């Protein structure tokens, strides 16, 4: 390996743990996941919370008391009441409805982005690891360049060049984020090539595609789920941060980060306009982190010895 700019991860940083996860080839990740959910109440809580947010996002039109865009100027900046369960914002829009629809815009963009990011990282990483040669060198070079810049700075500048919009934001997140995934999947592919049962399958005459699909993929699916869960949290944070800056989801579309930005001016008189969207971001990201950490611990061979 050529020398890289980023410091090599020492034994106990998270990066290395990510890669070590892939070294476990023996046990079923699904059974492990089930076990961790039974034993780890925090992870179970995360799963339930995340499920709740997904349910809210899907059922938004059924449970929202008002149209999230409907303006009632005469009722602006009200506190919670029977009419408006969580109060109203500076234009008299119902806060509860906006939070509910906010779940929809956040998860509706974060989940597809997470999946897209994983698939692109998986495709590029495994291809580079499997083919080697100049393809690998180009990919590794690009990864080095992308990882040489902080993620947020790079996404920020990409949005800057593409012009602020949700579409630019999602492109930016994927264009920046794939490097991290590709690096992990590339390392995993290199390791998987040496696994005995992969060598055995090859000796039996299995094709590359069959080996990838039948032998390697089932063994890396667990770590992929862990990555995806933790990533979903990061992406929710990223979307809300950039929307807060006015560079992502644009008003009047309800989105938690953008709502916080709108509420800044009214902090003194209507703090609930800041606290409640902040709480939504906190809980949704927390759910991902709880679940992801629990699953990671279950798959990490070292943590089971403890």
């Amino acid at each position, binding site marked *: 390996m050529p020398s890289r700019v980023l410091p090599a991860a*020492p034994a106990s940083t998270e990066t290395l743990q990510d890669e070590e996860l892939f070294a476990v080839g023996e046990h079923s990740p699904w059974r492990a996941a089930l076990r961790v959910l039974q034993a780890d109440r925090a992870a179970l809580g995360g799963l339930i919370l995340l499920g709740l947010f997904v349910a809210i996002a899907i059922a938004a039109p059924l449970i929202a008391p008002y149209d999230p865009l409907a303006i009632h100027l005469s009722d602006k900046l009200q506190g919670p009441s029977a009419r408006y369960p969580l109060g109203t914002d500076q234009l008299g829009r119902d806060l509860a409805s906006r939070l509910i629809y906010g779940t929809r815009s956040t998860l509706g963009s974060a989940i597809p982005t997470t999946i897209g990011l994983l698939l692109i990282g998986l495709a590029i990483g495994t291809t580079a690891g499997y083919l080697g040669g100049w393809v690998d060198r180009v990919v590794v070079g690009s990864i*080095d360049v992308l990882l040489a*810049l902080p993620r947020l700075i790079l996404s920020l500048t990409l949005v800057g060049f593409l012009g602020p919009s949700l579409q630019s934001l999602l492109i930016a997140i994927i264009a920046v984020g794939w490097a991290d995934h590709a690096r992990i999947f590339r390392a995993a592919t290199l390791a998987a090539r040496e696994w005995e049962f992969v060598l055995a399958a090859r000796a039996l005459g299995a094709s590359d595609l069959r080996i990838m699909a039948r032998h390697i993929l089932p063994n890396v699916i667990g770590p992929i789920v862990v990555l995806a869960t933790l990533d979903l949290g990061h992406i929710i944070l990223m979307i809300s941060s950039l929307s807060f800056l006015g560079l992502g989801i644009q008003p009047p579309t309800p989105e938690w980060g953008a709502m916080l930005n709108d509420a800044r001016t009214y902090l*003194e008189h209507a703090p609930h306009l800041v606290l409640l969207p902040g709480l939504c971001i906190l809980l949704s990201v927390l759910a991902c982190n709880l679940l992801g950490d629990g699953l990671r611990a279950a798959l990490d061979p070292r943590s089971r010895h403890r």
Partner: protein
Amino acid sequence: MVRYTLSRLLALVPVLLGVSLLAFLLANLAPGDPAELALSQGDQEPTAAEIAAKREELRLNDPMPVRYVRWLGDVIRGDMGLTYTDSVPVLPELARRIPATVKLATAALLLALVLGVSIGTVTAVYRGTLLDEAGRVLALLCASLPSFAVALILIYAFAVILRLLPVAGYGDGDLRHLILPAISLSVFTMGTLVRLTHASVLEVMGQDYIRTAYAKGLNKLAVVLKHALRNALLPVVTVAGTQFGQLLGGAAIVETIFAWPGVGKLVVESIYARDYPIIQGFVLLAGLTFVLVNLATDLLYAVIDPRIRLGAGAQGRGDDHA
């Protein structure tokens, strides 16, 4: 050590070239003609003749590779072009804002290091107790709260309700203005460092030489401070370096909220104004800073841990498998 330093320095060249290529391509492939953008700041619509003249002036009609090499030459000499909005040189404009951002990011990193390392160590030493649980919850919260939400909550508590600290602004270097922005920026990094220190101390505490230290009759405090922490903090040094780069990114958000006159705020404003040269200069500067900080941490690491420079220094990093 010299040899190790040189080899690490040499490895930076291709990465920095890559960063410069990225910055160049982004600005040149972005929608909109640079000549037109440079002219259409303000209200008046530039005429076709004016645009053509500007294209000639900016030498936009040459082929891409020629322009890249010329641009790179300019950048190396410190000329990053003129801003679109005020037509002033980009580099001094950025440089003027750097001290404020470095001040903010350094304060945030120090805060995160002091709190993160102490909380991480204490929770590892008192593993399994209520203290440990509280530390875990704190680290999770820190990793799940966006800096802007922390900032607004802090503003509400300390500036609006308690009226103890200023809401925003630089305050001519008055340190009271630094407190809230630095805390907001440090929260995420602190969470990361708590978890990392915790894991690292736990790992070290299981080593044989720790048992030896106990067997010598040392008390717990001496074992932790003299034997465990020294080794446990090695990974923390590395991660603190990369976190500094992340802090520079996070500064964009925090600076915008607190009207902190740093680079991050300038960049966000330039994005609104589509002032590409500033964004481009920022990418270059951020890349250079990040890469140099990482190099510095690597070298520091090699100074602390002789295994690195002696074992793998000659042929690059032996422990590098990414």
